[in-house]
């Protein structure tokens, strides 16, 4: 197995890890200190993010509306509630649960000072996504994706670069026909991903998929609001815990 390792990817991983080692030790010390009270990982909803989502909000913001049947991705079938006159309707029950899971994960990553990268190529909502990322002190890449931005980063950026720890896709499609290259690049580089997947998207490489409408601005605004809150909560909690210590 070791022989099959790609030496380059391993080096990245090592570098990233060595960079984070200090952080990890820090976080572990936090863990130690809070162990007496509570371990965040053991707590089901440490950051209190699960109550952020409400099914009615999802419904009102048209999260359930999918694409036309013709564009349906077969791997999205489990998340589809039904077909209303040629339009796929997503199952908001599942979306709700998966959203809670994703928010919890995001908050945890933010709590550990991970780098979160917002990605979207949906042209109408690019400014919103960028704005949200900036507001929560994280990063965004909503422009044309240069191949190798993650997989060949040291060359592309001219220096050894810390890669993001989590990619959040507001839309996994680059164009209406193609998947965003960052989905595969993130999977290659051991970066987990949270993504809003519409009925036309492929959810397989997404670690935490959220079935939902990715085209309607109000839906995107809702997602961004939730993600932002989760990240801010994670960061806030981190400050609190650090102060307690």
């Amino acid at each position: 197995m070791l022989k099959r390792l790609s030496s380059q990817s391993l080096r990245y991983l090592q570098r990233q890890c060595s960079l984070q080692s200090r952080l990890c030790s820090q976080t572990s010390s936090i863990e130690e200190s809070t162990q007496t009270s509570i371990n965040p990982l053991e707590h089901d909803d440490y950051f209190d993010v699960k109550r952020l989502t409400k099914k009615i909000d999802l419904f009102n913001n048209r999260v359930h509306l999918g694409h036309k049947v013709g564009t349906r991705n077969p791997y999205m079938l489990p998340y589809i509630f039904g077909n209303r006159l040629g339009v796929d309707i997503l199952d908001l029950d599942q979306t709700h649960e998966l959203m809670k899971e994703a928010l919890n994960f995001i908050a945890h990553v933010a709590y550990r000072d991970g780098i979160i990268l917002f990605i979207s190529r949906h042209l109408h909502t690019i400014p919103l996504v960028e704005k949200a990322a900036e507001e929560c002190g994280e990063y965004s890449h909503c422009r044309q994706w240069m191949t190798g931005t993650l997989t060949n980063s040291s060359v592309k950026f001219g220096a050894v670069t810390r890669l993001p720890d989590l990619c959040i896709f507001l839309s996994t499609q680059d164009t209406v026909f193609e998947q965003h290259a960052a989905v595969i690049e993130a999977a290659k580089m051991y970066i987990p991903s949270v993504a809003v997947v519409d009925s036309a998207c492929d959810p397989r490489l997404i670690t935490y998929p959220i079935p939902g409408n990715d085209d309607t601005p109000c839906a995107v605004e809702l997602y961004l609001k939730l993600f932002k809150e989760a990240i801010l909560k994670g960061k806030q909690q981190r400050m609190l815990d650090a102060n307690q210590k």
Partner: protein
Amino acid sequence: MRAYLERAKAHDAFMQGEISEYEIGKRHLANIMGADPDNFSQEDIDKAVEYLLPSGLFDKEARPKMKHPHDVIPKRKAAEFDVDGRPFHTYFYTAKPQFFKLMHDAVFVLESLKKEEDKMLRRGEEANADKKIIIGASVWLTKPAVEEKLQEKLSDEEYDSFIRLFTRIIEHPISYAEETFIMQYRRVLSAESMISSIPELIYDEAGRPYQEAEGARKTSKAYVKIWSQGSGHVTVNGTDLLDCFPEILDREQVMSPLHFTNTLGRVDIEARVEGGGHSSRAGALREEALSPTSSEIPPLRVSPRIIKNNNVSFFG
């Protein structure tokens, strides 16, 4: 990453050293040339270096020089990460953070303009036509200029999208509300017309005012005297215009500026042209008859056809 940060620090230190060395060198040079070191300007330095170390190399860039390190050593970007490796810029991963930041800001500027316009319409107001930005008075920065400003290399498509977005902003009816933002990326043309001011009038013995000018096109050179209060008399190389330019096209060339400024038949022209062929001679004359004409004529920089051009044909 550490190496990267060290490098950035080392560069700063290096620049500091270079600058102090330059300052000391400047005082030394002033001393050598027997000048006051406190009032020794860069111009004086250039002159002194040219005197002390004369070089006949064709490329002026290759001659010895003593410049401020900022002018010699290309600018480098400052460090982009903190110690944890977290990039400072939210658009860091796009590789062109400054450019995309600008584009992002521009979008919100446009949105704010739209909102403002809606509000005005609801109030029943109209855009103030007086405040409108005069688009003809300035041009967008060129691609190299934008690159220099942002310290980032842009592709042609990116520059095009930049122009598209900013054109939409400037064409908005109330774009004047964001004039300062827009004008950062435009170059004002008025500076150019200020440079080419109208030369002073000279008076001959008879007290008749005239102006002198020189001009060139291709390999031709023209020296022109224009007398006001004339009768449209033209002398070229001591002969008639017809003798000098048998082709009517050339005569039309010479006439065009006079026609444009409505001075045909009102000024006398005495010209000397040399070198080149007949059409380039006419071109050289045309530019010259143009630029000063007489004091009755306002500066003619408004018309794009009258931009001085040594190589491109007037009709081309």
